[in-house]
Each structure stands twice: as C-alpha cells, then as structure tokens.
C-alpha cells in the first residue's frame, strides 16, 4: 500500500496541475456534457463550476480517507455511491438557496454524478494520495473546471445576448447572435477554444525548435 502512495508532501504543483497543465476541460476533455449544456450564460456556468468543485473536493476527501478499507473489486461502485451522496446534498442546497438557478440548471445538477472527471480523479488521484493532498488537488481541478466553464459561458452569453452576468454591454444596437446560446453554439465555441490552444501550442513548439536550430547553427 505504501509504495502505491506517491510523494506525501503538498506542493504548489498538486494545486496548479488542474488549473492549466492538466485542465480537465481543455486538455483532458473530461466531463463534456455539463460543459456544453449549462454554459449558455456566465451565471449558470459559475454555479455549475462551484457545485462540481464541491462534489470533487468532498468525494476526493472521503475516497482518500476510505481508500484502504474499500476492496479493489467494488471500488468503482463505492466511488459512485459516495459521489451520488454529495450530489444529492448539493442538489438540495441549490434548491434551498435559489429556485431560479435550480430551474435553469434543471437535471444537470443531478447529472454531476456521471461527470467522468469526478470519477476519474477519485480513481486516479484521491485513492492514491493522502486526504489533504487530494483536497488541494481537487480544489485545483475544480478551479480549472470553473475557469473553463466561465470561458465558454462568458463568450456564449456575450455573443448570444450581448450581456455578461446579465449586464448589457453593447447597448441596444447590438444584434444578438442567437445561435450561440442554442446547442450548436456550445460545440462551436468549445471547438474554437480548443483550436486556439492547439494553435498557441504549435506556435510555441515551432519557436522552441527555431531557437534550438539557431543554437546548433552557432555551434
């Protein structure tokens, strides 16, 4: 058991991993269903991101705490039940805080259960690391997820309605680009973000290649 556990120290990297290098949405492409379904406004995106972060952190903590007591054969089923418990809690909490928000998110709060990112982190990280380290990592992953949702929700709301978080930005002359808040907009905006990141990555690699080429020429 002890060999399976990696370095017990909490480093900055265990938090920042999820923010950028292994961003769950832009790099690992996990948990796509809520990413596309609820990001038609920035507010929905923020609420969804926070709810998912809560489930991620709470289930990460519990899974990591219980990992040595869970038999290997039934671990996935156990993780799912743990996740479903926390999702039920957050479902009732959102219902109590804001009924409007609850209605606009609809069944997608309950569908957090089948967000593959959460199960993936429980299996790949929380079950192999200490509770506090898993919590830090889950916080980073949640922040990265929320950031990605905001990127999508912000762009879609801005183009589709001309507003951001409900505040009108472009004035009455703006012709809303309605397709952006409709389903195809979700696919197109996420596709565009991924293209942008791929393009940046390719440009950086080419620059590095050019630099190393110059160095060999100089030698």
């Amino acid at each position: 058991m002890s060999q399976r556990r990696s370095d017990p120290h909490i480093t900055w990297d265990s938090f920042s991993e999820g923010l950028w290098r292994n961003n769950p949405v832009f790099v690992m492409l996990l948990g796509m269903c809520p990413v596309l379904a609820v990001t038609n406004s920035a507010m929905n995106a923020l609420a969804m991101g926070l709810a998912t972060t809560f489930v991620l952190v709470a289930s990460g903590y519990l899974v990591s705490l219980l990992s040595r007591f869970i038999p290997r054969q039934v671990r996935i089923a156990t993780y799912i039940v743990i996740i479903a418990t926390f999702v039920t809690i957050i479902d009732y909490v959102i219902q109590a805080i804001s009924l409007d928000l609850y209605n606009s998110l609809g069944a997608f709060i309950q569908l957090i259960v089948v967000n593959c990112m959460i199960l993936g982190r429980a299996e790949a990280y929380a079950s192999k690391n200490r509770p506090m380290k898993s919590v830090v990592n889950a916080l980073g992953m949640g922040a990265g997820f929320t950031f990605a949702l905001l990127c999508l929700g912000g762009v879609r709301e801005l183009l589709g309605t001309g507003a951001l978080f409900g505040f009108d930005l472009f004035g009455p002359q703006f012709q809303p680009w309605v397709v952006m808040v409709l389903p195809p907009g979700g696919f197109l905006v996420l596709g565009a973000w991924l293209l942008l990141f791929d393009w940046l990555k390719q440009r950086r690699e080419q620059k590095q290649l050019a630099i190393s080429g110059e160095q060999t020429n100089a030698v």
Partner: protein
Amino acid sequence: MQSDSLIFIFLNTVLANNFVLAMFLGLCPFLGVSGKLNTAVPMGIATMFVMLVSSVCAFAINKVLVALDIEFLRLIAYIAIIASAVQLVEMGLKKYSPTLFRSLGIFLPLITTNCAILGLALFQTFKEYNFSQSLVYAVGAGIGFILAITLMAGLREKLLLSTLPSVTQGAALSLMLGGLLSLTFMGFAGLGNL
C-alpha cells in the same frame, strides 16, 4: 398533435430534441467511439439496449421510492440500476460476441457514466411519463443516439481521406463537426409545433 401522444414523444426524442445534439447527453462515447463506423454502430446498439433496460427498471423503482416516501434516494438507486444493466450487457456480449467485446474495450463499462442513460431515467421521472410513454421515450433516445453517432462516424471516416491544416487535427475538429450536425438537427425543431 398531443404533446403526450406516443408518436410525438418518439419523433421529438429522435429528431427535434436529440439527446446528443440538442441536449448534450452522452458526449463521451459520441466523441470517443465515433472514429470508425464498425465500432460506432454496435456501441449505439449496446447503449440503446442499456437505455431500454434501465428505463423499465427506473420506472419500477421510482414507483417503490414514491410509495415508501424516500425519493431523496432516487439518484443513488438509479445509478445502481444502470451499473447492473451495463454489467448484464457486458456479460452477454462477452458470451455471444467476444470480438465485438474486445473492440469496444473500455468504452463498454464506461456506458455506466454515460449521462444519456441517467439523463433518460431522470427526465422520464420529471416528465411523469406512464409506462408505455417511458418505453417509447427510451427507444426514441436510443435511436437518436445511434443516428447521431453513425452520422458522426461517417463524417470522420470521410475526413480521414482529406488534407487538413495541422492545427485542426484532434478534438477541436470533432467538436466543430458536432456543431454542424447540431445546427442541421435544429432544423427539426419546427416539428415540435405540429
């Protein structure tokens, strides 16, 4: 047409409110297994079967939960049912078609975390469908999923033969394709006002 008639429910779930392209459910297999037609179609059929089984079971278990007044356990009960249904399909496939079982690989157990299936069970509960309506809803959702994943696989096989800029290779292109398909399916939205 009545909005709770069986034909309306069927057409609505297959075309106008397609689970994948209009409601964003079941995107992981839609993007993950749609590379080749001869794995995409069996995956669609397996998913449809799980949908049918879990829809019937979810209908029954919801009756029990409501009768006992413990509806807060719904989510946990549904996910347990779906996991068992997937296990059933997995064992069946392993026995009757081992080649198919191997070609689907990890994506078969991952049907458990396919949100289309849990979504189906939850939506039929929210919409308070009766038994025959739930059954038609499940068949419609399954056929809609097969339709979407088959179209996507066909498009991606065609794209393999064309030259593309190097940046667009990978997930970004699949998402753009999904966007175009979704745009096409929005044309069916007018059917809702029949």
